[in-house]
């Protein structure tokens, strides 16, 4: 356990089928290995695919009480779909950070005209927020080595681990234990891509942000 880090509240969000639970399982193992106390609540809606999914992930050096994070207490929003990102912006602490994919799965209500599409680009709304935002556009990072539409979760994991300055070997070990053998190679490439993007962004930002 890092004595400077007493714990964090994280919301991991996206739509069904994006590997939110895998992301949450991997970091759960990581923080457990570091000796933290944890509570993780995976709220899954109706429907097999395409429904909103949010995982409330809390680790702490003290026992965690509520499995849900109160609005205003969120340190990080990690989201694989930007409509879902928008749902949680108001939950962040003043110094909260957003890690989001700019991928979007249009809601069926908007598709069929039952609800209006938002008047401007969701990416623009997110970026205008007063919070620190890291946005990754999956279409800019297509790779022949893995399917980014399926492995954005692990790309984001690499980004997050780099941002937190974590030992990549520890994370990679857990990835290897967590995914089926035939997907290990692709997942490791996805993880590496995430760390590479993060290094680029963090160098650009290094003059303004202080790593926690």
């Amino acid at each position, binding site marked *: 356990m890092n004595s400077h880090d007493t714990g964090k509240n994280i919301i991991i969000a996206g739509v069904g089928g994006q590997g939110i639970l895998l992301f949450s399982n991997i970091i759960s193992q990581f923080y457990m290995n570091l000796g933290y106390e944890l509570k993780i609540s995976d709220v899954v809606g109706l429907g097999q695919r395409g429904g909103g999914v949010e995982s409330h992930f809390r680790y702490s050096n003290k026992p965690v009480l*509520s499995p849900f994070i109160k609005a205003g207490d969120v340190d990080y929003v990690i989201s694989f779909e930007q409509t879902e990102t928008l749902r949680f*912006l108001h939950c962040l602490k003043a110094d909260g950070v957003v890690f989001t994919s700019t991928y979007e799965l249009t809601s*069926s209500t908007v598709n069929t005209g039952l609800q209006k599409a*938002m008047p401007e680009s969701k990416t623009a709304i997110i970026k205008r927020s007063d919070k620190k935002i890291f946005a990754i556009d999956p279409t800019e990072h297509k790779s022949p080595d893995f399917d980014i539409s399926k492995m954005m979760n692990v790309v984001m994991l690499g980004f997050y681990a780099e941002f937190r300055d974590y030992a990549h070997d520890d994370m990679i070990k857990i990835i290897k234990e967590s995914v089926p053998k035939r997907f290990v190679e692709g997942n490791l490439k996805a993880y590496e891509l995430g760390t590479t993007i993060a290094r680029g962004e963090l160098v650009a930002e290094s003059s303004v942000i202080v790593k926690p």
Partner: protein
Amino acid sequence: MKTAKKFTAKKMMNGNEAVARGAFEAGVKVATGYPGTPSTEVMDYTHDRYPDIYCEWSTNEKVAVEVAIGASFAGYRSFAVMKTVGLNVAADALCGAAGSQINGGLVLVVSDDVGRISGDDNNDCRHFGNMFNIPVLEPSDSQDAKDFMVRAFEISEEYSTPVILKITSVTCKTKSRVVFDEDCTYEAKFRHEYPVSLSKVIMTTIMTKAKDSTHPKLTRYFNDFVANINRLASDSNDSDLNKLELNGTKIGIITAGTPYYYVKEVLPEASVLKLGLIMPLPEKKIRELAEHVEKLYVIEDGHDVLEKNIKDLGVSVIGKELFPKFPQMMRFTPDVIEEKLVPGAPKRTPQKDVPFRLPISCAGCSHLFIAQLLKKHKIKAAADVTCGLIGTFPHMEAYSFEKCMGSSIAMAHGYNIAKENKENLVAMIGDGGFWATGINGLMNLVYNNSQSTVIIVDNNCLAMTGGQNVASSEFGYHYKPENKLDIAKVCEAIGITDIVTVDPYKIESLEEAIMNAVNAKTNSVVIVQKPCVTRFKLPKDTPSYIDQDLCTQCRQCLHIGCLAIERKAGKDSHQIVINEDLCTGCRLCSTVCNQKAIQS
């Protein structure tokens, strides 16, 4: 000298996993159930982790409870798992067991969908505790879930009563650390006290005065279940299942389940009674808290069951007048408690106008083909509780009505006789719903000489809960090819003569089969057979795409309700596009496009 038990192992478990662990430690011999989100995994974990325990997915919840009752009477511990809507189905069986003499412990693991997260039902299983006079336990986290499962069996045997272990959409899906005895080995517990166990209606104490009888044939039938529950109520004041934490005197909270932890986080100074045994209530502890504090609140997920029961004791508590129960199955959050009970709590406003998501079918699902054809021919239809119910949502509008599991066949029959068979309203039902109770509807319509068309969607599993086996599946815990029930043969045996089996992807054959069935003035069954695309990971065909030069944005394809078709903001205007990562290449959309814009 007894040595203290070692509790060395620690593991993150969700509530479902912890209940399964508890079943193992309790020495359960028979586990039955019917899938239902959020508690389906209780059975999955029990079956996968603890091979000593006999597990079965029964044909419905009532059967599951009856099987468990039989095992209990044989002297072995048994449990049945279901969601609360399933307990409605099983209520008659539970009523029979309530008040009966119990041999092996009998526990019903029942999940309430608080917050209506995983379904849209508003049932609260604690009402059954009140109605049948049986104990209800409610864990607050996974450690409780494991420990309470063991305690539930002890209570069941000690007080001779079935016990409900109430879990929720939050406890089931929340992972927390569980400490357990790693060295615990499996031993099927056996206890056989009674040679007979009859439901209380058989020997009603009022009519027969069996209590005052002396003949052994009469006395052995007598079970003083009221005394049993009263004894438990009295003992509950000293039970460690109920924890009274006396702190500040301003605010007192009576709570149970995960709301206990919301209270501890938001109101650390409050005095709290954490109820583990929520029925019957520990009256003395409640009064002790009431006397200690200025204001007493009850914070409970779901309906106002605790509140009413506490008020019945003559203790005044503040509950739904402060926390309105809308829409009935309320799910508390720390935010709600803070807003109401912490002065000056900051208000945070969510981003405006973020569209919500309706449930949507997977790309390539058989249900989309059926819904599309019914809409095309303006055929009225009743839907059932399966993935097909998504067709009732406003983005699809394929069905006229949808009610409970297995209901569509009987409802169609009712509609058609009322309309004197002038409209053939069709019943659509999944294989799960058909075996659960739909088969009764089919028998009913045959022998009552009805004229209805039934479309049975056979996707080889219960898809909506993640693909568990049903009676006609080609897999399962006890699967043998010779024991697989054949839907067509069963329909034939029931007396349906007009039975066709079709592949939905052969759209012309499907259309012909459905139209022939609808136009025939007789009972007919169309079996639409295609394994669930998601559960069985069916191979994909080349994805389709939309030629933007031909597309007029009429949205016909969007109304199919396929997850892969989207309307997206383009550079200057909106475009309708097919998400190539999600498309399975089933080609249904190309059949609805008048412009022939959808190609592959």
